């Protein structure tokens, strides 16, 4: 009898050991990354760049598969939120998730995921027309926005990233107020700016490099250091705007409860991929900053970012 009890206990202990999520051998099957955007967008390109670097350099014994979920990014994000936290489903998202959270569009947020890593970011520039003699630097732009509030037309996609960047820009100067007008993304804003329909906008570094020969002037770059591709544009700090930084990082997140082995495992793989020549060349080509953060540092960065995004998103969602 006693003997049998011991056996049972031993068996139970063994079963428990097996049931605890010790995934020494992660990954045992292909790892799925949900990209909640259509194929061809910037998030999708980032995901595929890393996928190729991982495959070509044998950085992971299993495949990394990318699943594009279209419609609206909140749909794919929720699919990732509700996925089984078994270490085989991840999400690649960016700041927009915090905008949706802060603006009250979704009832979940970044804190409902395990942070894995941030791989690269693209940063925005405050831009005007090259031949617009009213603005010599970003201070003169903000001065006019203060002297004549609500008259300078700022082209944006209302409620989206470039709108929030504009709000942060005007918040650097008390009393400054742009009139935000719905124009859309980078190309649409370039067209509206050149066509004298708007006075100012923000563009990503890649868009700026594309449009600067066609009559766009960068006033300040929202990143701590000048970009090697555009040394003529001062940072916003150099231009006297304090610590204004506006970048959009690629965030790899996991469903809450994903085993630590899998979270760290993917972060390791991404860190190695980040160092490959392929990823570095692709980032340079797209004028992205080669930032990499993981673990505690990444978690802290997310918290700090949300502190800035939340009030901005609330401001942006006021109609």
């Amino acid at each position, binding site marked *: 009898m006693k003997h049998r009890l011991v056996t049972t206990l031993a068996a139970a202990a063994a079963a428990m050991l097996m049931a605890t999520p010790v995934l020494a051998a992660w990954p045992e099957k292909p790892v799925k990354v949900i990209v909640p955007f*259509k*194929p*061809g*967008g910037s998030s999708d390109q980032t995901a595929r760049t890393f996928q190729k670097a991982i495959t070509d350099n044998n950085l992971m014994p299993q495949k990394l598969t990318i*699943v*594009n*979920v*279209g*419609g*609206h990014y*909140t*749909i794919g994000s*929720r699919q990732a939120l509700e996925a089984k936290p078994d270490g085989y489903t991840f999400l690649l998202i960016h700041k*927009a998730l915090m*905008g*949706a959270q802060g*603006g009250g*569009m979704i009832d979940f947020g970044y804190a409902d995921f395990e942070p894995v890593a941030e791989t690269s970011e693209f940063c925005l520039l405050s831009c005007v027309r090259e031949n617009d003699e009213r603005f010599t630097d970003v201070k003169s732009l903000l001065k006019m926005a203060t002297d004549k509030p609500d008259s300078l*037309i700022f082209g944006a*996609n*209302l*409620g*989206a990233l470039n*709108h929030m960047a504009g709000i942060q820009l005007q918040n650097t100067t008390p009393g400054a107020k742009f*009139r*935000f*007008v*719905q*124009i*859309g*993304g980078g*190309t*649409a804003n*370039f*067209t509206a700016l*050149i*066509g004298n*329909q*708007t006075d100012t906008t923000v563009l990503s570094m890649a868009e700026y490099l594309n449009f600067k020969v*066609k009559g766009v002037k960068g006033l300040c770059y929202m990143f701590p250091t000048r970009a090697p591709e555009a040394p003529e544009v001062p940072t916003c700090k150099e231009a006297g705007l304090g610590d204004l930084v506006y970048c959009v990082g690629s965030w790899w997140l996991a469903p809450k409860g994903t085993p630590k082995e899998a979270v760290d495992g993917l972060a390791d793989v991404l860190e190695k991929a980040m160092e490959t020549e392929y990823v570095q060349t692709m980032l340079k080509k797209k004028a992205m900053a080669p930032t990499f953060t993981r673990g505690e540092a990444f978690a802290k960065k997310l918290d700090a970012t949300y502190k800035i995004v939340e009030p901005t998103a609330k401001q*942006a*969602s006021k*109609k």
Partner: protein
Amino acid sequence: MAPLLEGFAHVLTPVPFLLVLLGTFLGILGGAIPGITGAMIIALTLPLTFNMDPGNALSLLIGMYVGAISGGLITATLMRMPGTPAAVMTTFDGYPMARSGRPGRALGLGIAASFVGGIISWVFLVLVSEPLSVLATRFGPFEYFTLVVMAMVLIASVSQGSMVKGLLSGALGMLIAMPGVDPAAGGFPRLTWDVLYLNGGLGLLPVLIGVFAVSQLIADIVDIERKVERTKFSTKGILMSLKDWKDQAWNMIRSSVIGTWIGILPGIGANIGSIVAYTTAKNMSKTPEKFGTGYDGGIVASESANNATVGGALIPLIAMGIPGSVIDAILIGALMIHAIQPGPTLFINNPEIVYAMISACLLANLLMYGIMTSSVGKISQLMFVPRAYVLPPILVFCVIGAFALNNLFFDVWVMLGFGVFGYFLERSKVPLGPFVIGFVLAPIAEAKLRSGLMMTAGDFSPIFTRPLPLIFVLISIMLLVWPFYQQWRQSRKG
């Protein structure tokens, strides 16, 4: 000129060339098989192009567009059944001529006329689209808004059947475009009734496949027992004689120019073009009584005009991002799926795609002429393939196509729902064209109007004080009032 030559050099390389060839061939087949329309085959091909280079994808789709408009004449001539709506007018003279023992000649006239129509409209495409796009870059939001309003009124007022039904269809399309991302506040979804899947709105592709492909499948299945009339086929007279070319030259040129201009008008396409050209040819003819009895001039007018609308309709698409026809609305979707912003900046930002499209259009017309004259006999055999074999695989393609873009099964339900919806609209004689144009154009109109109002702080007056918006509004009002005025005058006479 140099970029155009580069465009040609590109489409003559193996991959784009084969894609245009494949597209033209499949388009002809689609046009020739009753129950498969050009819009359907293009909407279904779109998902297959996701992983292609955008220029190649557009080349394939434009080949299909040219092929489908041309292929319709085979069925129209041999079966008195328009393979595509664009070929309705061809049945009037093509079928009687085929019945009277000259099917080869009827087809030959139609093929040659299609070719000439395509080439003449292509010349306009090359000459007009770039200057027009330069003009359009100066369009502000009010100019765009009023232009789009004019396009929507235009398609409703000239579509088949009653104008009220056309307007109703357009309004339904606009309503369907409302849920999802607010076009004037990019970040915020609206009218979603807390359904997460509606955050992105109803997808363009599932709605298009539903309305064009699934509804047609339902109609074909309901009608599966229908017997077709057929005539004997011979290739005698498939190549037009020199005398025919001389006799028809003026008719061809006139009908092609009419077709091109009708094509340029936003929203209306091949069927209207061929109706107007046919009517004009008949009115100007010394022997108008011969039209409708198997007369050369009737076939030539209809076929040169419907092919000419293809090049014409591409002009507003390339220059302004506004669809010149229903099929162009799908091509706009193709550009957007490939993350290319349609509009006047297309020439600046993606010149290689513009010139690939323009070159593909010419190449497709040349290939169409070659394929049709050499193998029209074999293609015509396909008309008799039992539809029971054709329809099931098409439905499978529909489901895959709707799912593939977003990887969401929700989109498949949307597609099936709009298939049933489209079927009942057609049954109630409500035209589908205005529905799709309304669906595609409503977000553009709304975004432009609201960003204009944001710029002026809520002041509507630029619509009436700037010259172009005022002209567009006045034309829209005239188009709206004219049919009612005519009705009123007739009722007073009677």
